[in-house]
């Protein structure tokens, strides 16, 4: 076998062009289905892992897939908001027998883009989120004050952010002059890499996102006597004043102005885009699901693994299509390979005649041909394997970014 392999290797080297063409054709034929399989497996594993690690998601009624993708991957906006009242309602449910806690999510804004760098999603949440997702701070500290933010590892790398830097939120609508102002947030920490969508997010306290939303704000203190030109109304009876639009809100929360920040409205009505619910017992889980299963319920509660399974069934269909294409490509390549081998055998007929005349057995002649095919197949498999692994390094994140 060693001699047959040696002769086959020499023959392949002699016909480099032909060998390389066959090698590449075979490698691509093997690479395609292997890569599709590996990438989809990785994608399925990643997407399922995060879904399985998220017991329940609460949000406004509407598309289940949109809500699940929003709560898990901060992608797609749910058609409507839910509010803090639902968080309080879950917290109130917590008793000794039905313990659960809710993690608010307000994911509506992004940071401002930089040349060539797209803005990152701003996730307003509570400290429980970091514990729940087991996120660690690699550099700096966690959020402690209004206006603080911690950035995911990918965001920090792309935007070259470090603790002490600042980052601006982007207004949702450039034409909404009376709406949200960009808020300058202070980066207090950088998260460790988690290989999840959390790496591409900027985390801040949910109250900070309400400030971006315009629900909370801070501005200079108004003195009814000296700042009369800034007042629309001065109710001396109640002592309350109404400022006009000339009073600009602060666009940065600092130690000096933090005390001036306040929120307007009922806290229970403050908007959230989704709520993660972590029931601590099966009973509380069932209780929460039952509560939101009614058609009269104001919100929907869903089990992410189920929703993601629905989504994956679509991916499976795509995978099947890819398999069919790969099989077709494989058949064509095999036919072409057969043709090439056949033509090659004809070209090498005189060589085989020499082998016969020297006394080469039929088995050895078959081994000479077989060794060539074996060498080509092995080399193509190795090449395809390496290419598949390299593709896997990049494709999973590309695929995720394409889908979500």
């Amino acid at each position, binding site marked *: 076998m*060693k*001699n047959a392999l*040696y*002769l086959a290797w*020499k*023959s392949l*080297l*002699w*016909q480099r062009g032909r060998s390389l063409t066959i090698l590449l054709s075979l490698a691509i034929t093997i690479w395609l289905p292997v890569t599709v399989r590996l990438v989809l497996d990785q994608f399925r594993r990643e997407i399922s892992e995060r879904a399985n690690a998220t017991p329940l998601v609460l949000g406004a009624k509407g598309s289940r897939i949109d809500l699940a993708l929003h709560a898990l991957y901060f992608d797609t906006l749910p058609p409507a908001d839910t509010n803090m009242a639902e968080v309080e309602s879950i917290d109130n449910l917590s008793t000794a027998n039905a313990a659960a806690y809710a993690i608010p999510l307000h994911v509506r804004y992004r940071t401002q883009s930089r040349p060539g760098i797209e803005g990152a999603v701003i996730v307003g949440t509570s400290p429980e989120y970091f514990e729940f997702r087991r996120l660690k701070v690699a550099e700096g500290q966690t959020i402690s004050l209004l206006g603080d933010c911690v950035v995911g590892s990918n965001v920090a790398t792309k935007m070259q952010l470090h603790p002490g830097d600042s980052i601006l939120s982007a207004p949702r609508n450039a034409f909404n002059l009376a709406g949200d102002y960009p808020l300058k947030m202070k980066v207090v920490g950088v998260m460790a890499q988690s290989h999840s969508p959390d790496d591409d997010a900027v985390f801040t306290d949910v109250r900070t996102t309400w400030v971006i939303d315009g629900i909370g704000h801070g501005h200079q203190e108004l003195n009814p006597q000296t700042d009369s030109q800034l007042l629309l109304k001065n109710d001396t009876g109640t002592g309350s004043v109404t400022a006009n639009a000339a009073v600009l809100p602060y666009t940065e929360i600092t130690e000096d102005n933090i005390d001036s920040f306040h929120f307007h409205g009922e806290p229970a009505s403050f908007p959230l885009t989704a709520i993660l619910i972590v029931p601590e017992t099966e009973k509380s889980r069932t209780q929460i699901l039952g509560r939101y299963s009614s058609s009269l319920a104001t919100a929907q509660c869903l089990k992410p693994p189920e929703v993601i399974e629905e989504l994956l069934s679509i991916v499976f269909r795509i995978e099947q299509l890819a398999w069919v294409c790969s099989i077709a490509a494989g058949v064509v390549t095999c036919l072409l390979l057969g043709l090439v081998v056949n033509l090659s055998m004809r070209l090498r007929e*005189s*060589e085989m*005649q*020499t*082998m*016969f*005349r*020297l*006394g*080469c*057995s*039929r088995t*050895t002649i078959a081994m000479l041909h077989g060794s060539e095919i074996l060498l080509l197949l092995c080399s193509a498999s190795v090449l395809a394997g390496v290419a598949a692994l390299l593709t896997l390094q990049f494709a999973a994140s590309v695929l995720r970014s394409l889908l979500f």
Partner: protein
Amino acid sequence: MIAINQLTFSYRDGTFRLRIPVLTLESGRSAVIVGPSGSGKTTFLNLIAGILPSSGGEIRVGHTDVHRLTDNDRRLFRLLNVGQVFQDFQLIDYLNVLDNVLLPCRIHPSVTVTKTLRERASLLLQSVEMSSFERRSVTCLSQGERQRVAICRALLLSPQVVLADEPTGNLDPVNAERIVRLLRTETRRSGATLIMVTHDHSLLPQFDQIIPFEQFLERTAAAKNDPQVAEGDT
């Protein structure tokens, strides 16, 4: 020893018929076959090597009756016992000079390429002044150089019989002389029988036995009317 008894051979079209009643060639001796083109010299070598099956009679090489062997056994017999120098050399283009000489080992079921065999191959190449060409592709060689490589390949495994079909056909008189001497020396050393076909009558005195081959050819009426058969080597 090669012993031939009542050997007959004919091609299917019936245009050519070879008949050798009795012929004996002793081990360690050399024989030269002479005769006009188409007299069956190459066919005779192919019959001894077992490349062609005979129509009848017996060819005994040592203790082996070649034509009683199966195809696979004939191949093995050839590989183990017969060294051949073909008219058109039949070297393998994708192998270099040394690998071409070592080819019988590469296709041998039990022989492996050892250091000793490599050294023997180098020594043979040296004896035909080809040692500086060891790593060169055979496609870059002249006809004479290719001829010498083919001879080295035939002698590598010290076969029992060496069959050389016009090995000096492309060589100048000096090199032709040298090649015949090499073949004679090597076969004598290993006790092998050398059978060589040549048209060069100046080389005949170097051989122990001269076989004029025309005597064995029986031409049919069809062949006599076919000028192509009469001209070409068979």
